[in-house]
């Protein structure tokens, strides 16, 4: 009985990326505005992949607030060599016995590897392009995905309101991968490869 009354856990996973530092995003994640917003929408856990450069900021914060803020259980790690699929899966909901887990969200830098991983899992995704990167094609990808209803595109300074947008995306989240239409070639990559190999039909 006690288990049912208990508030379900709800995980937000944040990935800053491994190759380029993105301190602007990290400091905004560890900001009361974002944390408040998370707690408002029922999140209980915040897991952060902060990268090499982010360690200082994260540890400084944990030193200041050893028990987190806004009732959130905050934890972090630098990066995972084997990929982030385990961490991403931890945001998925479950109906197991014991403590129930509600479906959470993923907030990611705009690297294509992380975005694809999150889209495959099918969890509301917030994509944050890094404005410091030159030749910023990340913004275009994030905007396009947001336009087509696959993700929420957000500015690093505006992630608090992105939590609300992710919540509204949850109900209308589209399946991934998209079914292709309007292509030049009829069957995509497989057909192109077969043509180039000269396979007899």
């Amino acid at each position: 009985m006690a288990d049912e009354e208990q508030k379900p856990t709800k995980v937000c996973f944040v990935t800053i990326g491994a190759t380029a530092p993105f301190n602007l995003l990290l400091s905004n994640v560890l900001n009361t505005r974002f944390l408040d917003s998370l707690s408002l929408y029922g999140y209980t856990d915040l897991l952060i992949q902060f990268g090499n450069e982010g360690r200082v900021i994260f540890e400084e914060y944990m030193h200041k607030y050893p028990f987190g803020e806004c009732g959130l259980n905050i934890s972090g790690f630098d990066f995972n060599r084997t990929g982030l699929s385990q961490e991403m899966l931890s945001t998925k909901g479950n109906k197991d016995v014991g403590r129930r887990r509600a479906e959470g969200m993923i907030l990611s830098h705009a690297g294509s590897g992380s975005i694809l991983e999150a889209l495959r899992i099918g969890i509301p995704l917030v994509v944050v392009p890094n404005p410091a990167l030159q030749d910023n094609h990340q913004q275009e990808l994030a905007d396009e995905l947001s336009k087509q209803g696959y993700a929420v595109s957000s500015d690093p300074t505006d992630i608090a309101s992105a939590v609300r947008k992710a919540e509204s995306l949850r109900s209308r989240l589209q399946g991934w991968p998209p079914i292709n239409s309007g292509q030049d070639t009829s069957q995509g990559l497989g057909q192109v490869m077969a043509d180039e190999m000269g396979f007899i039909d």
Partner: protein
Amino acid sequence: MSLTKMWHWLSMNTLFATLLILAVPLAVSVLLFLHALSTSHPTVVLKTRRRYSPTHLLIVLGSGGHTAEMLSMLRRLPLDPTLYTYRTYVVSSGDGFSASKVVEFEKTLRQKRERKGGLDESGICSEDTPRLEPEQLHRLNENFTDVAIPGSYIVITVPRARRVHQSFWTAPFTTVKCFWACLNILRGVHVEQRSCPKTMIPRYPDLILTNGPATGVCIVLAAKLIRLLRYVSTSLNVWYPAVLSLYEGQAPTPYPLRTVFVESWARVTSLSLSGKILLPFVDRFLVQWPSLRGKRAWRGMKESEFVGTLVE
């Protein structure tokens, strides 16, 4: 005075004459080169290859995002190891992540094939992975008996063309090093290829698949160079240059080293630097977003093809 004038006139004349003498062979050789360049790179491959015959596919992996996208595309295809019987994966030095991801990917391929070919003892096949037709299996065994063995693929490491933060002054040297390694891989004489079952593998990769890392640029340009040399040497009917011939006693494939470039899924409205460089060189240039459809290097060149989202 008149002497200098005459000298001047003479020198002008000789200069003109020399230029004329030089210009004619120069123009001829340029024309010949352009002819060789175009005919050595036919746009359409004739359908002459039997399915399930031994083939060699070369896949270039880059760091992080490129590798994730490439493997995602191969999973979505899905890559059929009975069609692409031997696979060479090229990774850059210091990129253990990509190498381990390849091994993981190949493991799932093998497991899938074992199920598909009815190799598991239970004999239970799921509906979405039908058994091979008896004829296909027969051909497979006839042509290439060890498709499923671990030796049906290889991961080769090449030096990086340019490390992150590397000075632009030293970049040309490392690029040349990378290019040389790529040439060796395509010729099948790279150090790491020594242990390959040579009789099993077609002389050159039949198909090269890349999605934009710097190594891919080196590989594609090296492939173009070999194709050109190969065309020139065969059309002049001279002996095949010793450096190019490898596995004796094997008929060369009619269209070796075909190149397919897939622009990164992350590129929505503009081509990547690798894409811009390779646009005039690859046989097929595929883009995944509609606004990149129909890009070309210059007038009259073939266009990029929009194929929709290839990643999953």
